Structures are given as C-alpha cells and as structure tokens.
C-alpha cells in the first residue's frame, strides 16, 4: 500500500566510465545475478499478483464510483500540492543558503532533517494536537504542515544531491557579477539546473502523502489511504483495487520524472537520472 516502498534509492554517480563497466556487465552477467533478480522480482511481484487476483478485474471498473472515493482522492491530491509547495518554498532557499554561506552547518541540517524518521509519527502527532490552535485542527492545512515535516528527510536529500552536483558558488557569483540579484539567480540560474532534484523531491512527497495513514487518521481526516482502510471493512476487494490504483498513480509519476529528467539531462549534459540524484557528468576536457 505505501507506495514509498516502490522508490529505489539511487546512489550518486560521478562522471563517465559507466560505458566501460556496462560493457563488462553485458559480456559477463553472472548467473547469480539472475537468481537475485528473480528472487527480488518474485518478492515484489507476488503480493501484487495476489492482490490483483483477490480484487478481481471487475473491482477496477467499480472502484471509482464507490462512496467517498473521489473526495478522499481529492483531499490527498490537495494535500500533496500543499505539502510540495510549502516544502519546496522552505527547503530550496534554506538548502541553497546553507550550501553557500554556512557549509559548516550542512551536517547539522542533515541531522535535523532526518529527525522525522527517528521520531515515530504517533509521537509527533500527539504533540502537534496538544499545541495547535483549534482553527488549524479543523483544516487540512494542519495535516499539510505535518507532512512537510514528515517529507523533510526525503526532500532535503533530493535537493542536497542536486546542489552538490552544481558548482553553486561559481554559478551564483557569475550570475551576480552580471547584475542578477538573489531571487533572479535562484529563479533563472539555480532552479532550472535543479529541475531533476526538484522533481525527485516532488515525487517523494507525493508518494509520501498518498501512503501516509497514521497522522491522517489521528487527525480525523479521510485521506485516500484512510479511506482505503475504512472501506476495507465494507468491501475488501474494492479497497485492494484502490490501493493498486494508488500504486499505479505513483508509478506513473516516477516514470514521468525519469522521462522529463532524462530529456533535460540530454539537453544540458546532465548525468544519469536517478531518484535521489540530479548528478551531472563532469564537463569534458579541452
């Protein structure tokens, strides 16, 4: 159900040399690799197959007209938009600023952003509900703000990887020597070169929002995952069909980022597109 598990964590790649190793791999792809691939494939695909069997094909035709399906989906979509907007608006300038002006704080920021993973959501939500004003408790904005915290580890890492792949200092100095102010530099120079990183962050947040159950249910909002669990008690087939639907939506988003990222990379000479990277191959020599 939680589509987050579908996201592969890519390792950062540097420069060229991939061609040679790819060639070597092609010529001597050992049998044990196929075995591992097969085991992993079975591990991931078997539950999907079982779920498909259980739901039955006809469930996919009627899941969209079930009571509460569209409101829940719409709420989750809105939350995804709110969360992404707030996260990027907060995280990009912060990460850029820390990279440029306070590189010594980078580790600290990394540590802080990982906290939401260490602290269980239940603990977080109980605290938030204690202190948040009543008006906010009734609005999905509260959940959006909580998701900003929850998505921080993923968003920060994606943006951080993107920033590391750029010569941030030189680019910003070049831009400012040509007369660009801070915002113009961010908008015209940095953001276009961080596109893949921003897309990665967005997909990770969307996946998170479409998979998060604890906070939403404790906040008493019927988001898509909450609806799936609630509906499961009425009609298990339908709810399984809905969760497969959620998986497909996130998978399509992933495809989108890879396609868009690859296109950008081809145009501007970027490297391999990977979910956690926006790494760019080193510029060729003279």
């Amino acid at each position, binding site marked *: 159900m939680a589509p987050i598990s579908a996201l592969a964590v890519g390792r950062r790649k540097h420069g060229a040399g991939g061609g040679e190793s790819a060639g070597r791999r092609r010529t001597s792809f050992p049998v044990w690799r196929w075995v591992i691939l097969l085991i992993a494939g079975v591990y991931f695909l078997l539950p999907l197959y079982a779920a498909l069997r259980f739901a039955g094909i006809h469930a996919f035709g009627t899941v969209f007209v079930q009571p509460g399906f569209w409101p829940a989906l719409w709420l989750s979509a809105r939350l995804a938009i709110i969360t992404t907007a707030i996260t990027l608006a907060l995280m990009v300038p912060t990460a850029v600023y820390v990279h440029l002006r306070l590189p010594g704080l980078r580790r600290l920021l990394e540590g802080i952003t990982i906290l939401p993973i260490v602290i269980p959501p239940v603990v977080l939500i109980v605290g938030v509900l204690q202190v948040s004003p009543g008006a906010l408790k009734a609005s999905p904005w509260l959940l959006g703000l909580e998701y900003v915290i929850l998505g921080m580890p993923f968003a920060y890492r994606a943006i951080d990887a993107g920033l590391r792949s750029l010569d941030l200092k030189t680019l910003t100095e070049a831009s400012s020597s*040509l007369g660009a102010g801070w915002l113009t530099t961010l908008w*015209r120079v940095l953001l276009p070169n961080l596109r893949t990183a921003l897309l990665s962050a967005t997909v990770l947040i969307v996946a998170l929002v479409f998979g998060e159950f604890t906070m939403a249910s404790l906040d008493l909002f019927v988001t898509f995952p909450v609806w799936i669990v609630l509906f499961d008690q009425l009609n298990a087939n339908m709810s399984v069909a809905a969760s497969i639907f959620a998986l497909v939506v996130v998978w399509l988003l992933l495809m989108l980022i890879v396609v868009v990222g690859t296109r950008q990379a081809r145009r501007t000479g970027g490297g391999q597109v990977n979910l956690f990277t926006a790494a760019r191959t080193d*510029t060729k020599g003279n």
Partner: protein
Amino acid sequence: MATNAADAATNDSGVAGIAGAAPARAARAGTSVSLRNLTRVFGKTRALDGMSLEIAPGELVALLGPSGCGKTTALRIVAGFETADHGEVLIEGKDVSPVPAAKRDMGMVFQSYSLFPNMNALDNVGFGLRMRRASGTRRRQRAGELLEMVGLSAQAKQFPHQLSGGQQQRVALARALAIEPRVLLLDEPLSALDAKVRLQLREQIRNLQQRLGTTTLFVTHDQEEALSMADRVGVMKNGKLEQIAAPSELYAKPATAFVAEFVGTMNRLPGDLNGGGTVTVLGTAVPVQDGAPESGPVDVLVRPEGLTLAPAPNGNGIVSNRTFLGASTRVTVLISGDTEIQVDVASTAAAAMVPGTAVQVALPPTPVLVAPRNT
C-alpha cells in the same frame, strides 16, 4: 613599489600605445581603479596586509604570486564577493565598498567553468544584458557580436557541456565583456586549460582587452602568463605587493630577492660583502644594488644569461648537464664542489661543453642583487 604605481602606470600606457592599441583605447575611456591599504584577515591568516595598488584606465595589471599570497582575495574584494576589514576600493575615485557585486558593473571570468548549464552559449552571453533589461533583439544581436569576437559564432546554439574547456572560457569572456564592464576581472581563467589552448587564449584575451580598452585586473600564479599579457605585473607575498613594474623591469631589476627568484630562473652564488658597496663573488669584486647590508656572507643573485662561461682546464666549475633550448643551451655547472648554477650559452658555443668539461664561470661587473645566505 606600490606607492609609485601611478607613475609607472602612465609610462606603461604609453608603452602599450606603441604596440598599436592607442586609437582603440582613446575611443572608449577606461576606468581607473585604486586599491587603498586593503586588509583582510581570515582567522589567523592575514590574506591581505595593507595592500595598495593603482590601475590606470585601460591598463592590464596582473597580480602574480604563490598560492595563499592574497591575490585572489584582492580580486574578490574588487568584485564585491569579499569585504575588506580595512581599506577601500575606488572606481573612478568613488569608494565602492557599500555597492553590492551585482551593481558594480564588473565582468568576471572564473577559474572553474562558470557557464550556466541550462543556457546555450548565446543565452549565456546575453544574460547580463537581460539583467539590464535589453530587448530580446538587441540582446541576441550583441551576444552574437561578442561570440563572433571570440570566434565562436558557430557554437551559439550549443550548451556548455557540448563545448571544450577553452571554448567555455571564451564564452565566459564574451559574457563578461557583453555588459561593457567598467573593470574586467580575470581569476586564473586559463589554469584549467591545456598548454596549447592556454597560449592561444592568452593572446586572444590580450588583443581583445587592448582593442576595447577595458581596465583589467588579472590574477595568476603563472609567471609566463603574467609577463606576456600584462602592462604591469604586481608580485605579491604574504598579503603585500612586493613590487609592481612592467614585465621587463620586473625581470631585469627585481626589487627584492623574493621577486628575483619568483620571476624567471635565478642562480644563487655564494659571495662576501666587502663594505663600500661591492661583493666578492667567483673571485672578482662587483658592485651591489642599493639596500644591502655592509658586510658578511651573502648569496649573489644572477640570471642564467647574466653569467659567462668558457672552457678552461683550470676553471672554477665543471659542467654537469646540458639542456638544448634552440638558439641557446642551458648548461648546469657545479662550482666550488656543491653549488649548482645554470648558465645560458649560445648553442654553438655549448657544443664543446660536454658534461665533465672544466669551465671558467665569470660575472660581468654590473650591479647585482644580494640576499641573506641560504643555509
């Protein structure tokens, strides 16, 4: 030294004018730059220690020095990327310290490739004009002209990753010049390039700079680059200017031992001061340049071409090595058993000096520079 920089600048503009750049230079008045008593401290290091420098309009001044001597810090303070703890930077007589980098109108070319990866060459060059709200047509036209000037018209639509390192730096130069900067700042722009490209680009930068008459500050650790391109070269050490002079003067009349040894090849010959302004070296007494101590053991600094060499059975040295350089040959000679010196000899004369030959090394009686004896 730094204090008489302004006088030297006027002379040197004249020298450069003879080279054929005078008409272009007169067409657009350059900007004068003056660095006054700049001090910048990073933690315990004094990157700049009361550095002063005057750059005349249209002049190209190179700052030369080993890494950590403060040359880049000085350039970055002029650009507005660093602030000085003390001192001021005057552009046309006005203190620019409170002006942010974006509003200083200075074109800068960086050591590392600084083109915006998301823009093609034309858009990179046009970026500064866009910031100045030039119309799209004007921008493309001007950017096109500048790309033509650096010989890259054909690459206008290419993205930085499709360009070679040399091409990228040429686009960066065009981009810096597109805004018609008051001052052009070059921060080791050639150091990432290979030797052949570096040589070509060196000439191109110098030609463009002379044609446009843009006042230019050029930072480098490569003495050949500094000597071949600049009107005047400032040699820096420990955050201070040791000497600033025209390349020929810097080479021929170094003010200090540091400058003498940093610029070009320099031999150290053991000598003894006699008092009265002479030093005994290689058995003969020669006059000493001003500022030497009265007596005691010293090293006499002499260039390889400042010594003469002739085969002599009872000479004071033995040839240990030869390097053929074309018209001349650099001969390494061992004198007084343990001191190795290098002497440039016409290749025709060097033919007879195979390693092992006994030779007589002599010093013409021109004033020499001395330094405390190296131990």
